[in-house]
């Protein structure tokens, strides 16, 4: 009897993996098709858009650029100057010094002739203590505001920025990002275009600046990074931004906007209580909470995505740093899904609950677990002698080919749409990485993901109990910290 059950279970697991493999294939093909359609439409629309108008139009919304800075003393002045020179009519730059231990604040005070002002800071969203708000005496820097506060992490710093922001749109960025001069005009456009649905957030594609030439805050010559890990991230970013997010944007299922470059409607961010500082995936969590709020209130909405390369950042090329980053991303994903598990498979939440959430749960969160379990399953088959080498090799070959196809498609996409990597040797390097990625880099990504799971289980970071319980409603976040403080 047990013998029968054992073999029956083995058969069932085999069937599960078979269905999963086919699902992966079907989903990736759907993603490829959707992203191609979205890119085609986007490029067609772009032909008729005149971005010059937005710069001076009184109808264009104002933008508050929020950039948290922690120990950024070496480049802060150059970065802020670059932000202040963006081509847009109505914008302010808010730099939040998040308790830096270096000379970040001093450099800012000196370079921009800043003076402490009597700003009546009102913590609409609770944050760590704000020590001071600074404005410049020099009118050239009238757009700049600097907040000095106790260290509380990126989300907490952004919340402080949100509290004093004045404009309708919030642009949350990393201070070390390089923004294209026309980045604001392009990112603001979706907010201005929609009529039937409210655009609540717009995400932007991020380019990799390692090894590129940068002049006056703009990337002038693209080159792929020199290290294998850097090159791998170029492919990964193409896959994520040009394919994944474009496809999700097509069906209005975007759940993640990169924390390095995301635009949000300020009134809505305040309504849902700003960033949740107790999770390491604050960017994803905010988008999910905003979407959840709109679904709960039954207000038609949209989360858009702009695929143009408007923001560049340096990616980690060191294996340890990259590992820590991926570990953090995995924990952020788990925490966000955990916080909002109420929406999973719930048709009340539309695409978010029925498609986006289950996809993220299975193919992002559970992917490392499923993969490692698949390896164990293969070993068991080997041990009991029920292992078909032919079937194994064929399945392995199939998944390897899928990986090649998807990666090649994303690079082809980049070539057709933007053609930034013009050098043939760069293209050859990328093709080589596509070939070795499943065998050389993917196992590392798998291990980092598993480590993320482990760290989540042992409670590293995050807000343990709260994350495990989850939010009952999107608005609960507004009161949760106040309650927590009272209980202390």
């Amino acid at each position: 009897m047990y013998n029968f059950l054992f073999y029956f279970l083995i058969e069932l697991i085999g069937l599960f993996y078979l269905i999963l493999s086919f699902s992966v294939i079907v989903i990736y093909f759907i993603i490829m098709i959707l992203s191609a359609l979205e890119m085609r439409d986007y490029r067609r629309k772009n032909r008729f858009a005149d971005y010059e108008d937005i710069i001076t139009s009184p109808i264009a919304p104002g933008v508050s650029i929020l950039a948290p800075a922690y120990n950024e003393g070496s480049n802060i002045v150059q970065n802020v100057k670059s932000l202040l020179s963006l081509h847009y009519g109505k914008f302010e730059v808010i730099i939040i010094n998040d308790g830096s231990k270096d000379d970040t604040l001093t450099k800012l005070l000196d370079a921009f002739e800043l003076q402490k002002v009597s700003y009546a800071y009102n913590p609409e969203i609770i944050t760590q203590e704000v020590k001071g708000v600074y404005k410049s005496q020099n009118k050239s820097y009238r757009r700049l505001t600097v907040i000095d506060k106790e260290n509380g992490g990126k989300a907490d710093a952004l919340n402080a920025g949100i509290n004093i922001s004045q404009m309708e749109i919030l642009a949350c960025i990393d201070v070390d990002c390089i923004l294209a001069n026309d980045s604001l005009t392009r990112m603001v456009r979706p907010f201005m275009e929609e009529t039937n649905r409210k655009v609540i957030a717009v995400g932007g594609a991020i380019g990799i600046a390692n090894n590129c030439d940068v002049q006056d805050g703009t990337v002038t010559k693209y080159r792929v990074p020199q290290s294998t890990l850097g090159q791998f991230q170029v492919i990964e970013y193409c896959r994520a931004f040009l394919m994944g997010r474009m496809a999700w944007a097509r069906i209005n299922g975007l759940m993640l906007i990169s924390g390095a470059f995301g635009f949000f409607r300020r009134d809505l961010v305040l309504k849902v209580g700003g960033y949740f500082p107790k999770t390491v995936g604050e960017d994803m969590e905010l988008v999910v909470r905003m979407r959840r709020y709109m679904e709960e209130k039954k207000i038609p909405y949209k989360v858009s995505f702009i695929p143009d390369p408007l923001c560049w950042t340096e990616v980690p090329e060191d294996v340890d740093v990259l590992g820590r980053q991926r570990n953090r991303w995995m924990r952020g994903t788990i925490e966000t899904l955990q916080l909002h598990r109420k929406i999973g498979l719930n048709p009340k939440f539309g695409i978010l609950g029925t498609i986006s959430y289950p996809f993220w749960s299975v193919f992002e969160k559970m992917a490392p677990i499923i993969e490692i379990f698949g390896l164990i399953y293969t070993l068991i088959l080997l041990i009991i002698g029920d292992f078909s080498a032919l079937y194994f090799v064929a399945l392995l070959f199939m998944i390897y080919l899928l990986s090649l196809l998807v990666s090649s498609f994303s690079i082809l996409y980049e070539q057709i749409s933007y053609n930034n990597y013009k050098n043939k040797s760069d293209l050859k390097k990328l093709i080589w990485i596509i070939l070795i990625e499943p065998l050389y880099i993917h196992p590392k990504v798998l291990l980092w993901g598993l480590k993320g799971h482990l760290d989540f289980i042992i409670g590293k970071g995050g807000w343990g109990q709260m994350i495990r319980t989850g939010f009952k409603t999107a608005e609960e976040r507004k009161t949760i910290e106040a309650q927590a403080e009272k209980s202390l």
Partner: protein
Amino acid sequence: MKRKLLLLIFFLASFSLSFGQEGLLPFQDSAALIQELKLQEDIPSFTYRFFIPKANKNSKITSDSSFLWVETDTAFISKSFKNGTLIDSLYGQLQGNSASILFFVYEEKTNVEGLQSYLETMYATGDFVLAEDKEQPENDIMLLASSNNYQPLDAYKNRLLGDFKLLAVTLIILFFIFTAASMIIFMLIFKSQRNQREENIKNYENEIIGPLTNLLFEKDLDEISQMSDQEISEIFPRSLFKKRLFKQVLIERIIGLNKKMKGEFKDKLKTLYKRLGLVELTKANLKDSRWDKIASGLVQVNEMDLSELINEVKSYTNSKNFHVRSLAGATLLNLSEKVDLSFLKDQDYPLSDWQQMNYLRIIKFVGSSKFLNIPILFKSKNPSVREFAIKMVRMLGRVDLIAELHMINEASMEEEKIELIKTYDALGAHMEVEFINNCMLSNNPDLKKIAVKAAGNLGNSYSEVILMDILLQNIDFRLRRACLTSLNKLNTQTFEKFVATQPLPENKALKAQIQDPLLSNV
């Protein structure tokens, strides 16, 4: 080396074969083997014959037709027999003739060891079953089954699932290879086509720029208008002019120049556009089913002032496609002799900020030279159009329309009231203070906040009272800031007095902020 390897494999294979065969059958000696043969009716490819030396010849025996003896030099050999159970009876008939038995496998003579080896092989493959096993009663079949290793679903899996999975995987692999190959081919074709197209565009631009510059600088507008068809057709090589891409490049070039140039040059370009027959291409674009082609056509109509196509443009002002109806609206605004804005009034779709921005730019541009009938929009059924009309009054500085706006004060929706107050504030409409004061008492927080801000510039003594009333309520921080700012603007003494009598920490903090010169814009 290869040969050695083959030998080694052969050796190993034969070793394992012989090793595997040892002792499969329970025969201790040849007698046991013969005993077994006597119980077998039919062993595949096995026969036996009888043998009698000639010296023992017995004519009675040798003439027995049941043996069909064949005479050789030394003996008589019987025909072949297959049925082992007959051995004893046949042998009995030959007693006293020194008869012996010969074994044959595949008609080849063999000895006892050879026969045993053959039976071993047959036994291993299941083609030979021991007589005692055959004689097991039928009801022992369950016991037999239980003595085997049980492999559930094994046969089922192999026949259905196993094959199905492998088939599916194989099909997918083939599909991937096909897709990958298609993608590579597509990439190559696409790249070469794009390169070719870019090369052609570059060549066409070189072909276009010379004659076009000559025409613009050497001929005046009348000369271009009066050029004969013959002369026109000779401007560009005929073979090129037939090509659609060439015409597209030409259109883009003319439109590009038109955007950069001013005065008579613009007129020359427009005349040339018509004389070259490019309007036909524009017409074709307008009739296309693809929205982006229609949009291209609309851009061409707009840039080249093709007012003869205005009816076609009008048909798109209420198009389902956002871009088409936006461009159609912009084109109409640009080309209509009087900007009566009636097409906007009748818009079914809400106006987006993007459309408003575009329309405002054009209206600002043409407003000085054309009649602009903004009040018609105040009566539109579309709220977004009414809001846009109010915004236009503000952004165009049309103080003359304040009286018209006043008429819609009370009937307006709250979003419109917000725009009305912003407009009154921007235009300094002090006469609307009563409306502003009423709006300060609204329950709509956005409307209240805007009214409070406007009261700072346009308010009166009653506004001060309302502001102080609001400040005494439990209100949010931003509204409190707006109230105190407005109160300070209206009457600094009242402001100072209020903060002194209501020394809440937020009032004090806001007073410091309001009075900080560096924060005057916050």
